[in-house]
């Protein structure tokens, strides 16, 4: 007769967390910075078609790092969640906070219940009527939810990126200025220069009308 193999829960959680963290550290990071009219999201992403940043709803954007198929599944689920809520109630009832909570619940559930945790971190950015109403949330692989102010970052080098951006940040900056900070944060400690076509950038801007999400073109990124 075989004796069931006992693994203490502390060890189990530690192993899972280490597994997820390793997967995330392999990928590249994403940063978010507020500017005068909205929020900028910037990622280093040499693939033009496999995007990490996406539109979720009128004023809400999604960004994910780690395993593409996993954060893509989360992006699709987020869009379903938002569209269902907007269709059932009204457009203004869709909030970034509810979406971030849903991501936290889901990732937390997967971390403890599934065979393999998701190797992802996701960010939910919501632009408000004024800069004070902006919301930046990030959710880690185990479902821990963080609310950030002004700047945020997810991925392998998230702490360094956040620290660099916080040092630079000033409220009310123009988009070009904010883009400069974000690019500089990535570029620090890098010897090679990241090419304009290797960036992926998008904004949610409160001046764009109902749907505030817009991707930035390569020309805007080369300046």
């Amino acid at each position, binding site marked *: 007769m075989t004796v069931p193999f006992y693994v203490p829960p502390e060890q189990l959680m530690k192993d899972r967390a280490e597994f997820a963290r390793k997967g995330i550290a392999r990928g590249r990071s994403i940063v978010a910075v507020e500017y005068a009219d909205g929020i900028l999201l910037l990622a280093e992403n040499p693939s033009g078609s496999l*995007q990490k940043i996406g539109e979720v709803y009128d004023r809400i954007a999604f960004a994910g790092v780690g395993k593409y198929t996993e954060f893509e599944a989360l992006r699709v*689920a987020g869009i379903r969640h938002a569209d269902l809520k907007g269709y059932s109630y009204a457009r203004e009832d869709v909030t970034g906070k509810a979406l971030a909570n849903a991501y936290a619940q889901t990732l937390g559930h997967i971390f403890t219940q599934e065979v393999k945790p998701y190797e992802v971190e996701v960010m939910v950015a919501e632009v408000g009527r004024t800069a004070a109403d902006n919301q930046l949330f990030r959710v880690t692989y185990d479902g821990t939810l963080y609310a950030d102010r002004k700047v945020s970052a997810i991925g392998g080098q998230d702490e360094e990126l956040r620290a660099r951006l916080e040092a630079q940040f000033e409220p009310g900056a123009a988009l070009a200025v904010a883009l400069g900070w974000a690019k500089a944060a990535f570029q620090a400690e890098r010897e090679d220069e990241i090419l304009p076509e290797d960036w992926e950038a998008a904004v949610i801007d409160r001046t764009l009308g109902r749907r505030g999400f817009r991707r930035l073109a390569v020309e805007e990124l080369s300046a």
Partner: protein
Amino acid sequence: MSRDLPGDSLPIEQIDLSGSFSSFLRSRGLEPSWDLPSDGTALDAPEGTTVLAFRYGAGVVMAGDRRATAGSLIAHRRMQKVFSADRYSAVAISGTAGIAIELIRLFQTELEHYEKLEGHRLSLEGKANYLAAMIRRQLPMAFQGLVVIPLFAGFDEESGTGRLFSFDVVGGRYEEIDYTATGSGGRDAKLYLRSAYSPDTEEPAALRLAVEALVRAAEEDSATGGPDLRRQIYPNVAVVDADGYREVADDLVAATAREILEGGL
């Protein structure tokens, strides 16, 4: 996880990347549906009436009167029947108002949902086909007298032209090359357009033609509401051109309507 309305958890357990928003609603049992009595008792639900669309120089114009009727009663005087479907297309409705409005809301959500999931818009043809399928699913309702007939028009980003589509009750989809109209006053609007229509007009002329056709329809058909100067109720007119969907400003429509009525058409 829960099958209720949006709660805390994400609908991640049933991710099917190809699924439409409607199929997602269906999987949760939330698809809009109207249960009908089997004996088919007649219902006096408000009906929207005359809407029309035609091509002009830069794209397409779509216009609708504002009246909804229930039998011989005027149910609503300020109903909106012309809507943007997405950035480059417009949709107008005639028939049972409550059902039509719900279908339009679903259609709008569906187009935006597709665009967000796929990263690009459906082709204009794809949107028209999808709308046709939605109307086809309403066929059992049509047998109960709850008919919905839309018009669909948009700017085709691929060919760079305005295109318009009419539909029938079984979901038949017909592309029109010049003009079309539907609803109880649609026949009169079409009769007028037949004699007055010319392609390649400028926007002011197109706006005038649209309002004239609606005024004509209102003169012949009691269910179509003409411009109401006393209450300040004017038709809804929208254009879709290379810059996308745009509603013509109310005061511009009002000025045109006043001019037509005072000119004695």
